[in-house]
């Protein structure tokens, strides 16, 4: 064994739950992710378990995502979504009766959706429980993330808000997994000096930064990103390896651009007659993805060729081989230079595997199997396991950094979205005041304080400024920020100037029901 590899998947979705509507377009983000990423990953991991492999993977499952996965309303809606998809796939198997290229694909999708449905029910509709099982078997390290994925460096003026994001997440993790989290995925890997103090309070032992977070540490890291650093308060910072990231992520050089892979855009929702597809659209007349896609990327052309399952599978196997070879070479080369075994940190968005890159889970499967069966140079590990075996590391202060475009906070703080922050700052200060004002609230007052905390957390989600920046669903994002801030302001006013309106509060609690046991005292100074 010459070195280690730690593959880390970050699974996150913002909290989108609209009980007030029968259907809601943005709830589909969750359903697509379950169908295309989470359950396919569970299938692959079940295979490793069944085959008795020493696989090691790390996953962050954010509190908002876990909450949604465990929510009965969303679970019901997911089953409805899946049943409709099966219905559509069934129709497709008939509609493509005379098309020898497409009919096998239609049949493939129908079978696949049945399989996904079976798995979903086999796990009792509890995806979180499925991943928990892998952790309890020692094959998966599950780490936490901030409560609502707030960008912590932008809360520096209100350290209690940073504290609350972490501690609420820690509490939620405990309720999902029955143990304390050992590691954390900081939202967007955004780190700034001081965050590690809160992590220490939560007994979190490691986090990840982008490459320059470790590389630009003071003093300079002797081993670059190929070993973690200890912050002065003894928390390990692991830096991302560029090579393994580039091969998978890069729009131009990465594997997912191979012409044999399934094309993301050519969904039947856009190709077929409106009247046929309309019953399956969440928000007609807007067409949006069904997940049934018949064409492959082919190349830099408009004329897409039919997808070939066998060729795509070959591509995934080839790329897995390439990836493993590259890691072996990398580790051997580094081992030759360093006086210890290097560790490569390879973090990715979980959604890359399956949703974006349909064959991603297959690639992962081949990769893990090749690492396990075909070689012994690179050892798969998790950061916590690595630290247990390698507790001696260099001490340095990582640099403020993120993995967003350009490496700092520009994505979340620019002309499109900076209007949010002055409002958030005021709300954050007010929450601190409220927590200080009511150290021991009970009854209706406590309910109001807890709800104020929920509204603040939901307003702080970095997803909203992100969406405003990319201009995708800007109206939705803007609406969410405003609604949560307005609800917070109303509660604050009721608690400080007037009186808590119990009936109104009840409706708001029903609407924004995340973190039922939230501890508002985390915001006290």
């Amino acid at each position, binding site marked *: 064994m010459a070195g280690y590899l730690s593959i880390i998947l970050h699974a996150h979705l913002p909290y989108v739950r609209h009980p007030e509507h029968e259907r809601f377009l943005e709830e589909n983000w969750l359903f697509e992710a379950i169908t295309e990423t989470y359950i396919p990953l569970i299938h692959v991991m079940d295979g490793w378990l069944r085959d008795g492999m020493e696989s090691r993977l790390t996953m962050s499952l954010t509190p908002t995502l876990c909450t949604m996965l465990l929510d009965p309303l969303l679970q019901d809606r997911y089953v409805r979504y899946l049943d409709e998809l099966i219905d559509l796939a069934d129709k497709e198997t008939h509609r493509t*009766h005379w098309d020898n290229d497409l009919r096998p694909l239609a049949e493939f999708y129908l079978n696949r959706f049945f399989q996904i449905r079976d798995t979903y029910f086999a796990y009792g509709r509890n995806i979180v429980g499925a991943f928990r099982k892998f952790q309890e078997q020692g094959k998966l390290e599950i780490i936490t993330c901030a409560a609502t994925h707030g960008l912590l460096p932008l809360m520096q003026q209100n350290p209690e808000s940073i504290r609350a994001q972490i501690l609420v997440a820690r509490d939620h993790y405990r309720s999902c997994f029955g143990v304390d989290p050992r590691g954390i995925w900081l939202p967007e890997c955004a780190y700034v000096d001081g965050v590690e103090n809160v992590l220490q309070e939560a007994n979190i032992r490691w986090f990840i930064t982008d490459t320059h977070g470790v590389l630009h540490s003071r003093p300079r890291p002797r081993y670059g990103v190929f070993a973690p650093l200890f912050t002065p308060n003894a928390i390990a910072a692991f830096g991302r390896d560029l090579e393994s990231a580039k091969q998978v992520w890069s729009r131009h050089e990465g594997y997912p651009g191979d012409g044999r892979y399934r094309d*993301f855009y050519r969904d039947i929702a856009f190709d077929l007659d409106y009247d046929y597809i309309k019953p399956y659209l969440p928000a007609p007349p807007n067409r949006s993805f069904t997940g049934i896609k018949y064409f492959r990327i082919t190349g830099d052309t408009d004329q897409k060729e039919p997808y070939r399952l066998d060729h795509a599978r070959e591509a995934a196997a080839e790329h897995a081989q390439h990836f493993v070879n590259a890691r072996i070479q990398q580790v051997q080369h580094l081992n030759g230079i360093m006086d210890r075994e290097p560790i490569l940190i390879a973090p990715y968005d979980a959604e890359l595997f399956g949703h974006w890159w349909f064959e991603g889970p297959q690639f992962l499967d081949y990769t893990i199997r090749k690492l396990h069966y075909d070689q012994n140079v690179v050892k798969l590990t998790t950061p916590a396991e690595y630290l247990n075996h390698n507790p001696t590391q260099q001490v340095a202060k990582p640099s403020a950094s993120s993995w967003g475009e350009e490496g700092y906070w520009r994505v979340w703080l620019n002309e499109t979205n900076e209007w949010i922050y002055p409002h958030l700052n005021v709300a954050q200060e007010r929450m601190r005041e409220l927590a200080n004002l009511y150290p021991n609230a009970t009854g209706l007052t406590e309910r109001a304080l807890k709800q104020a905390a929920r509204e603040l957390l939901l307003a702080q989600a970095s997803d909203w400024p992100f969406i405003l920046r990319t201009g995708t669903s800007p109206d939705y994002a803007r609406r969410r920020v405003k609604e949560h801030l307005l609800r917070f302001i109303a509660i604050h006013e009721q608690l400080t100037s007037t009186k808590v309106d119990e009936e109104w509060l009840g409706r708001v609690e029903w609407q924004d029901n995340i973190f039922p046991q939230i501890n508002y005292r985390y915001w006290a100074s």
Partner: protein
Amino acid sequence: MRDPHWLYASWDLTSEQLRALNAQSSEGHLVVRVFRNRVGTKPVAEVQVHPESRNWFIYVGQSETKFLAELGFYSKGEGEWTTVATSNATITPPDTLSDDTSVQFATIPTEVSFRQLLSAVQEAAREHVPLVEAIRQLREAGHTNLPEQPNLPPAQWTEAQSQALAAVLTMDQVRRVWIGSLEVTELIRRRLAKDISSMAAAQLAEKAQLGALSSEALSSVSSAFGGMPARKGFWFNVNAELIIYGATEPDATVTIGGRQIRLRQDGSFSFRFALPDGNFSLPAQATAADGHDSRSAHLQFKRATDYIGQVDAHPQDPSLRTPRPEHTA
């Protein structure tokens, strides 16, 4: 701070307050002055802000530096500076490798909780020192409660090793690997949800050449990772499908084309079949639930198409909306 070279300043004033202050300013608006390390030195930047602004992005161009800012104005007449508010301090992050190549190692037992480590440290009256330093001091003082520090890395780390490692890590890369997280998802949705006319596409292509960020990301991706050229010129797609529909007893078994189909609760069914060019046959058979009676129909179809000009099958324009009733015959 926003990144190694930019600051973000914001202030919370009401419109009336802003108006009142602007009125006192010789230039009719406020000014932000940025200082290094402490207020009162020569400002490193001074920006005039728009009269209605409550925030501003300020370029400072200096990494790893502590900055503070003052919001104020120059009074009418004397032109004296009046401070309205002073900001907190912020420090821009580094944008290069550190020059400090000193190295310190520590052994931290991860199975011991921080609470235990901290209480060991507290007992030894080292609580005001960073934990790693405290542990080191305790070790040196011969504390017995701490785990062994095995295999300290050798002090020798040669220049050759340093350079070899530096060659592996190409931080000279200007373009960082662009991750995307939710971003890539949303870019795709945006592209499909928006009405992109060919004119807008041309505008985007222009902007892409100017290097604008969002359009670079937007411009022609057929998958997250490939490129598709923007659609040019007039286009026309035509497809044909058959609808086979009918009904029988609700508990009958029906096959079409040899494949069993599902009936609705009332025994009716309808299915669409894509009809390409060619000759096709479609047998349809219904069998009673008791298996004793069955009927069948053997349908035959032919489609032949002549094309004039480029006509494709799909895709349709993603932004196509269903025609409104008043526009259809």
